[in-house]
């Protein structure tokens, strides 16, 4: 758009308008954004559609095989599956609480303090995320072979505590990442003001900082719970796959697969999907209600 020509010096302005060649800015044409947006949408929808199809295939197979309801009822009637569901629910909940207990202090310390060797500790915290799950299990097994851990081995290895410890080692790493980002996003200014008003560091943490982490805490808890629910490799190695003792839902899927029971395996998988979805929805609702309160 050309500027309106002012009254004064109008003649000069008009002359320029008539004779000056159009500048590069005036001839520059901006290309349409449609192709770019369409490409982005196609790539994004590929992944999203794959997730939905993957789940639908699971349900669809059971529905079309005509054995869906039957195998669901059979699974729910089975004492092994019922035990696996209870152990999964209980162990995942305990793991989540434990994961929050370590991830909050680690996230806070890593976010608020600079110290020598911080980069190395940061790398150590990523180890459970990048390590192959089986290796976590083997390493835990080895750990409980050496003193003083071997004193607890009878009580832990191949027992329920091993299930929780295996879940905890991996799930906590994800909770730690989430809490670190959460604390990073809360400016230190709030704590500083609290300190000037007479608070100790601990009072500033409990009264000013922690209440601001609600959303992050919920996200960390959901992530830890979901990771723990799906944990299989370390549990198989470190806790075994004994029915009515250390059998969690992923173990059931594995055992059903070994027995060649495809409908049973799919049914238990769907139970896990439903459990994960229920937890996700509950935490979202809780989070929204608290944030709106």
């Amino acid at each position, binding site marked *: 758009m050309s500027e309106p020509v002012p009254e004064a010096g109008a003649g000069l302005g008009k002359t320029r308008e008539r004779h000056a060649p159009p500048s590069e800015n005036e001839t520059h044409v901006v290309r349409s954004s449609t192709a770019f947006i369409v490409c982005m949408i196609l790539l994004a929808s590929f992944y999203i559609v794959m997730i939905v199809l993957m789940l639908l295939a699971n349900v669809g197979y059971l529905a079309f095989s005509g054995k869906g309801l039957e195998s669901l009822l059979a699974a729910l009637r089975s004492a092994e599956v019922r035990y696996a569901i209870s152990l999964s629910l209980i162990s995942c909940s305990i793991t989540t609480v434990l994961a929050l207990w370590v991830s909050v202090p680690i996230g806070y310390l890593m976010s608020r303090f600079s110290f020598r060797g911080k980069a190395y500790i940061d790398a150590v915290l990523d180890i459970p995320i990048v390590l192959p799950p089986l290796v976590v299990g083997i390493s835990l097994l080895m750990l409980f072979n050496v003193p003083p851990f071997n004193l607890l081995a009878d009580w832990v290895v191949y027992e329920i505590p091993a299930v929780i410890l295996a879940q905890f080692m991996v799930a906590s790493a994800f909770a730690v990442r989430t809490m670190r980002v959460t604390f990073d996003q809360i*400016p230190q200014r*709030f704590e*500083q*003001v*609290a*300190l*000037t*008003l007479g608070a100790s560091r601990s009072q500033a943490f409990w009264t*000013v900082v922690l209440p601001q982490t609600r959303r992050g805490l919920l996200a960390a808890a959901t992530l830890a719970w979901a990771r723990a629910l799906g944990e299989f490799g370390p549990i198989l190695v470190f806790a075994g796959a004994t029915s009515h003792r250390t059998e969690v839902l992923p173990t059931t899927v594995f055992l059903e697969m070994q027995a060649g029971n495809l409908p049973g395996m799919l049914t238990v998988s769907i139970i896990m999907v439903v459990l994960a979805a229920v937890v996700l929805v509950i935490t979202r609702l809780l989070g929204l209600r608290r944030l709106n309160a």
Partner: protein
Amino acid sequence: MIAIDGLSMSQGSFKLENVSLTVPQGVYCVLMGRSGCGKTTILEAICGLRPLVRGTICLNGRNVTELKPGERGIGYVPQDRALFPTMIVREQLAFALVLRRQRQAAIASRVDEMAQLLGIAHLLDRMPGTLSGGEAQRVALGRALAANPSVLCLDEPLSALDEDTHGEICGLLGDVHRHTSVTVLHVTHSRREARQLGDCVFDLEGGAVRDVALGAGDSIPPGAVPDDS
């Protein structure tokens, strides 16, 4: 009073060397300087939020250099106000008093007093996210003043306000100072604020603090500028 002597600080590439400054008891002092000259750093040092390399800070004749921020008897209003996002206004005003374990009745009465003084009685049950810039500034002032500090540190308290609110809060700061007789250190880059509010004005330039006479037409009462500093 505020007495800073031989203050040296270092943070990364930023350095302040041998800064000295004295603000007499009950005086409204404006510390001016360009952005990045270190005036906020000096304010934070007074609050105990920055480590010193050398130097001493005395508030009301008490050497507070080694004291924790909460033991210095200061009120601090940062530039972004930093109202606690999860507390209603009433809780913000009561925060310092609750930490001092005052009785409920004493807290309620002090909160009411602050709310009246700052004109925020109708905002007491609101969350900070719902306040306008001027209202938030009043709440931040109330939170800093609730525990009756001897020194009030204000970091650019008028910088983020629109023209009308600027004048309103400017007047309020003057009223609050007259009412409480608190010693104020107000950091700004605005000469206009210094003229409107400052009993004494210092300029921080090149790491050195000097007294400033703002010229004819300013509102600084003659003789209020400390000559014993």
